[in-house]
């Protein structure tokens, strides 16, 4: 497929330049010009009012998927313990299913786990598809893929979401290939397009420098993985749900892998995903000694301390406490960013916090754009003053 410009029709309006996700069109002598970078993605075709951008590709027909119903969530469990991201996805699924007027279903696979079904129903599942068998005790790619494949083919859902965990990122692509559908990784936003009724999947690209919204028009279910900590779990009081058991069998030879041992390594540091308050520091903190003061503030607020990539590289925090694109995503009630300029990579990991306070001496630091309240000033003075006031107690 090739894309070209009919120069006579082009009026130089630049719409295509703005629409191009690859920055592959520029204006030359007042006309659009396609550069080598063009991947023929076709994003420019729709925006050209003059029909000056042409292609030899035939328009693709979107199949009729009106019979595909239901928003499904893979409810990941390990050793009988449900992962938080499954509940977070059920929260989002309730919203999506509400818009579509469809049902929410959870997929629960494992061994001796049927008790978990009630939790899934409490968090919004109308149906729980339960596959319980010894061969499913530990997550294994082939056995889990087979179960999901069978369920998808039997019940034909519209949407299928999984957490972008080490399990979800192993399983989701495998399932997508198996059932013949597209897949979008690591989404941070999901919504239903009001015209087409399709799932809009938004995710960071190019290391978080750009956000891309992706559609999955040509196959069902529309599949996406979602980073843990981005969506919100939502209890649905009084919800009633059905548990539908799925029979399954597969031989060890067909599965091909065997888990010899699962070893838990003691977590170094703290669990940021559960912290209500996070006090985070960046380059502006200056040194390890002064970073300790942030820890004091975190303690005073009943929270945890975290940091940017720089803070990790400087050795002020362990990697488990790094927030951002290459670290963790967090969504505490309160996030206090101290001496953090707010590079997009960092913002991607904390912008879903309920409230954000930024303290920075540079008033132009991008962190202020994502803050509810900002203090321009020396962070050490500010932190000390906050500590002094907090230690004095709530009365003024």
């Amino acid at each position, binding site marked *: 497929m090739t894309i070209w410009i009919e120069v006579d029709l082009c009026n130089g309006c630049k719409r295509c330049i703005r629409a191009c996700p690859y*920055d592959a069109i520029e204006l030359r002598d007042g006309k659009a010009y396609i550069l080598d970078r063009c991947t023929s993605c076709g994003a420019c075709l729709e925006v050209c009012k003059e029909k000056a951008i042409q292609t030899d590709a035939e328009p693709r027909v979107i199949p009729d998927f009106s019979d595909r119903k239901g928003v499904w969530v893979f409810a990941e469990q390990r050793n009988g313990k449900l992962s938080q991201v499954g509940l977070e996805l059920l929260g989002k699924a309730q919203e999506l299913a509400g818009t579509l007027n469809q049902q929410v279903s959870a997929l629960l696979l494992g061994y001796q786990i049927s008790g978990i079904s009630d939790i899934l129903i409490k968090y919004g599942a109308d149906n729980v598809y339960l596959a319980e068998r010894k061969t499913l005790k530990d997550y294994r790619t082939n056995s889990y893929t087979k179960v999901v494949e069978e369920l998808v083919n039997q019940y034909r859902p519209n949407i299928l979401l999984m957490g972008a965990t080490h399990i979800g990122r192993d399983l989701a692509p495998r399932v997508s290939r198996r059932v013949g559908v597209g897949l979008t990784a690591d989404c941070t936003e999901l919504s239903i397009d009001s015209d087409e009724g399709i799932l809009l999947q938004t995710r960071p690209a190019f290391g978080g420098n750009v*956000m891309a919204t992706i559609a999955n028009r040509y196959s069902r279910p529309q599949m996406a993985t979602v980073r843990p900590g981005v969506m919100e779990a939502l209890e649905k009081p009084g919800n009633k749900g059905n548990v539908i058991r799925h029979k399954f069998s597969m031989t060890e030879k067909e599965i091909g892998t065997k888990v*010899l041992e699962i070893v838990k390594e003691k977590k170094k540091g703290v669990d940021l995903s559960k912290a209500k308050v996070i006090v985070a520091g960046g380059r502006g903190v200056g040194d390890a000694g002064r970073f300790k003061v942030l820890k004091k503030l975190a303690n005073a607020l009943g929270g945890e301390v975290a940091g940017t990539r720089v803070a990790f590289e400087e050795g002020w925090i362990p990697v488990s406490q790094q927030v951002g694109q290459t670290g963790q995503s967090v969504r505490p009630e309160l996030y206090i960013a101290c001496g953090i300029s707010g590079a997009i990579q960092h913002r991607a990991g904390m912008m879903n916090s309920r409230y954000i306070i930024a303290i920075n001496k540079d008033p132009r630091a991008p962190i202020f754009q994502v803050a509810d309240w900002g203090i321009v000033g020396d962070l050490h003075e500010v932190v000390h003053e906050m500590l002094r006031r907090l230690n004095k107690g709530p009365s003024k």
Partner: protein
Amino acid sequence: MNIIVLVKQVPDTTEVKLDPKTGNLIREGIESIINPDDRHAIEAAINLRESTGGKITVVSMGPPQAIDAISEAMGMGADKGILLSDMAFAGADTWATSYTLGKAIKRIGKYDLILCGRQAIDGDTAQIGAQVADYLNLPQVTYVSEIEKIEKKTIVVKRQLEDGFERVQCALPALLTVIGQLNRPRYPMIGNLIDACKEKAPIKVWNAADIGAKANDLGLEGSLTHVIKTFAPKFKREGEIIEGDTKEAVNVVLGKLRENRLI
């Protein structure tokens, strides 16, 4: 033991900057590199070859200049290279890419192990490995942090988890995706690099016809997902700057926190 390594040439995204006016990526002057995780896959293949013998074939899909990534892999020690390059491959999502790579691997034929990096830094999807494995009907282990043992029909590896690791035994042939902890990739040897850039270097370039793929299964046309919009990340918050000296500002902020029952 014959090993295929899948590599991708990527822009060095740690260098990516946005044009503050247009919000577009500034691509000029950004270096293309072998995707970091893929270098660990190449290194792992070379280490395995030392104990098991056999040949290493590096496969990459990309524009003509991606041949540099293959040359570099051969500089590190790979035996052969295949570049999948055709305008028809352009704009592919992971569905179409895994089909293209899968077709090419079928044409290569005999192999015992396929190694890939966990994910590429430009897309961060971590989907290709698993999708290729499924296309070829192979077992897979992702997030491999250590290769403990390899025998004729099985391999034992450590697979990293969020809170530890699991030891997995996997039947061969199989596909593994590897992470940085696995090894320290060597630098290419100048002599090897020079050989890899010679005309007679064992590098082949295959197009759509060579792998027997239909055009409408490839590239953008063969893709199931499409980017419909890109934008610079936007944030909705007001960004109220609290005025006054430190004492006053802290006073106001603590007041806000109390108001919202945060303290």
